[in-house]
């Protein structure tokens, strides 16, 4: 057996906080072989990022690293003075972070940053370093690197920027890269490309990768071995195929079960087929016809009024039409910037459409008389970020009661309190919760509170804008399950907006695929997932990392 490239023994990271010590990483040991891709997976708070940061020697006060030893090619690096550690960081172990915008200096061109990094670590002249920088950019798949090298970071798109970060990490020919959620901020189609680049470059150079991510699919498709972490400890470690196909620990099993796969059918659809009702259509509750939204971003009033070459119009949504059947779920899929949130804001009454109409039970919710009143009483919304959607200064009881008071459904305090307690029970929270503040709850619990608020005015139509994107997979599964059950209980109609195709497949009856504000495909969920017509949909489906694609 060859000597491991990096060997960590009994690593602990402890934060000395006011209310006692908090152990973020609790005595973990692992090895990384040369040229290997080691996936580290876990939910938020599992200590996976802390592990990466601790290896780099970047834990600051009040954090403290306690470790038996960390060896890089047999040489101890955990007790090195800061001066020596700096030579290892970047030169021998490089790092790729989640947010490509903050890991590049916005004031320097990409070339300057690359040349500086190369020359600090390698004995090359400026011209040689620049030549190498161009090669690196070309290797990372940046088109026309000769001229792009003089661009600033903001002139690249998110995916291109992450390519630059990867070439920056590889600039000093390191032996290992710590990649902390390298693709979590990117769209799926870009994510697939970036992972391909990272993997290819590391394989060519024999660089080992420690791939830290919450996304089991990314690990399944890219890693050789994996570590499953939970609450600062290693739950299970082994080859990717073994763990995903034959998990031994209950925690791993639970984690894998919770992951929605784009390959599994919507259980409701399967049940409907069994009953022979798959093709029946219910009456439409909401009809959207030719919906468009144009934002005028012209720099001055003159160009706004009279046009000219400075006039700048952004067509966020163009001529989108679809219908949502009563009691069903319509899924809206698209990558960032596809106009799905703009659609949601128009449907819910926050943004006036530029053209087109939205009919709720035949009433145009923007133009007809009493449209606003009807809209408010029948439509509610669940937002993506459960931390921003609840007023931090309000008690949970007041938050949930707000729609009832605002819409004048009830003014009697005891009646409202009873209803709030009932709603909390329905979303599986203790009614006592109404006396607390949002910050006393976890993300998943807050999302339940947000759902309770949406239900409190007894709406018929609920728009869910990425309701589970901010949550861990196991929590996501619970929230989706809750949403499904409430739908049956109250006969709700959902518009589910998500970038996650697996979530849409599980939840939706029909799907619309948005791309740059245009609806490229629209139809029953199984038809679209089984037999996509548009090229864009096909590309999107291929790009999704899935745990059944074990590398």
């Amino acid at each position, binding site marked *: 057996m060859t000597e491991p490239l990096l060997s960590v023994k009994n690593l602990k990271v402890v934060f000395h906080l006011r209310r006692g010590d908090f152990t973020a990483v609790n005595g973990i040991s692992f090895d990384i072989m040369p040229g290997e891709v080691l996936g580290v997976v876990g939910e938020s708070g599992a200590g996976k990022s802390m592990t990466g940061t601790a290896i780099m020697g970047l834990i600051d006060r009040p954090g403290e690293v306690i470790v038996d030893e960390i060896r890089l090619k047999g040489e101890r690096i955990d007790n090195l003075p800061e001066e020596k550690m700096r030579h290892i960081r970047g030169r021998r172990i490089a790092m790729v972070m989640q947010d490509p915008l903050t890991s590049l200096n916005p004031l320097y061109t990409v070339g300057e940053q690359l040349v500086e990094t190369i020359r600090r670590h390698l004995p090359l002249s400026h011209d040689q370093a620049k030549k190498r920088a161009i090669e690196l950019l070309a290797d990372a798949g940046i088109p026309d690197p000769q001229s792009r090298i003089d661009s600033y970071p903001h002139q690249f798109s998110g995916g291109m920027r992450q390519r630059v970060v990867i070439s920056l990490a590889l600039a000093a020919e390191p032996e290992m890269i710590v990649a902390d959620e390298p693709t979590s901020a990117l769209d799926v189609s870009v994510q697939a490309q970036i992972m391909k680049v990272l993997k290819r470059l590391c394989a060519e150079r024999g660089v080992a990768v420690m791939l830290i991510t919450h996304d089991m699919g990314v690990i399944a498709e890219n890693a050789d071995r994996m570590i499953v972490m939970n609450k600062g400890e290693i739950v299970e470690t082994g080859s990717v195929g073994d763990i995903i196909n034959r998990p031994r620990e209950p925690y791993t099993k639970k984690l894998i079960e919770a992951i929605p796969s784009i390959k599994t059918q919507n259980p409701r659809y399967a049940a409907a087929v069994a009953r022979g009702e798959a093709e029946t259509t219910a009456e439409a509750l909401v009809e959207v016809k030719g919906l468009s939204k144009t934002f005028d971003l012209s720099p001055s009033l003159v160009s706004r009024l009279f046009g000219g070459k400075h006039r700048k119009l952004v067509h966020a949504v163009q001529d989108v039409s679809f219908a949502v059947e009563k009691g069903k779920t319509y899924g809206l899929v698209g990558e960032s910037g596809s106009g799905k949130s703009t659609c949601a804001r128009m449907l819910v009454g926050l943004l006036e459409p530029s053209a087109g109409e939205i009919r709720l039970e035949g009433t145009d919710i923007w133009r007809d008389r009493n449209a606003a009143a009807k809209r408010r009483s029948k439509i509610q919304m669940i937002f993506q970020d459960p931390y*921003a*959607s609840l*007023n931090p*200064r309000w008690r949970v009881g007041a938050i949930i009661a707000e729609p009832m008071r*605002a819409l004048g459904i009830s003014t009697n305090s005891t009646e409202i309190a009873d209803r709030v307690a009932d709603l909390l029970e329905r979303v599986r*929270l203790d009614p006592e919760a109404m006396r607390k503040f949002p910050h006393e709850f976890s993300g998943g619990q807050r999302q339940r509170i947000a759902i309770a608020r949406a239900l409190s005015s007894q709406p018929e139509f609920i728009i869910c804008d990425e309701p589970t994107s901010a949550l861990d997979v196991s929590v996501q599964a*619970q929230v989706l399950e809750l949403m499904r059950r409430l739908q049956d209980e109250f006969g709700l109609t959902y518009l589910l907006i998500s970038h996650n195709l697996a979530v849409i497949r599980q939840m939706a009856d029909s799907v619309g695929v948005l791309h740059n504000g245009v609806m490229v495909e629209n139809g029953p969920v199984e038809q679209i997932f089984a037999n996509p017509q548009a090229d864009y949909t096909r590309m999107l489906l291929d790009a999704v990392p899935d745990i059944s694609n074990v590398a």
Partner: protein
Amino acid sequence: MSEIVPLARKSRFARIIDSDIFYSYRRSPVAILASIVAAILILAAVLAPWISPYDPFNPRTLNLMDGFTKPMSESFAGNFFVMGADNQGRDVLSTILHGSRVSLFVGLSATLFAMTLGVGLGLVAGFRGGLTDAVIMRIADVQLSFPAILIALLIFGVARGLIPPSQQENTALMVLILAIGLSNWAQFARTVRGATMVERQKDYVSAARIMGVNPVLILIKHILPNVVGPVLVIATIGLALAIIEEATLSYLGVGVPPTQPSLGTLIRIGQQYLFSGEWWILFFPAMTLILLALSVNLLGDWLRDALNPKLR
């Protein structure tokens, strides 16, 4: 798979003791010292009519022969003056106690007035945006380009011209509060506007708009509670500034009427005797003013750091 949220309820007092703010307070010796000094000065001012050794405004108890008595000595008439007596034989300690009462009253009222005005305009500007925002904030910019004391002088002068002389004595304090308050609202407006623009974007505001909550109610019930943190900081530091501004105006002779001397008035009286050796008439009121302004200012500084999560 029901989740039961654990019950953990503490008394209000226990929660305050346990809060992060109080923790930061206990660990800051400057804050503890400043709050003790400020508390003593404020308490002394509030209780002035009951704790001051003499009544400096009752002509019957004054003896002109006591004038210029040195500190810690007995006067001609047999009175003992800790901080000496001024030219009219008034006990300096008693005039300071009564004077800081006036100074604090004017400072507090002016700050409250500036805060109400600034927070209100800032909320509207940040929430409405567009033209409303532009108009309010340009007025604030114009005002901030003048020293506050000039604005206060201007307002004071205009008010003097409008109010009939017979009423001037009674309305002097009100005019002073108005002048200082109007010259300090812009800071509040700027801060609140920025915070409001951030909060306005958040989903909980969207949620309220979806259910058709009146914009005024959204501002008051949703946004206002979330922007008060920085307002408290500015208000504390603003209180110190308002006290100094009042002292400056009174020193210039345009502030409070002579029948209700404030710390600034006392300093103005005292400086006439500084070069003839009667230093105590100036020294003690000036020290009180410095201690008051400094302790309140340090408290504001500490509060700003304590509320800033980046500095924790």
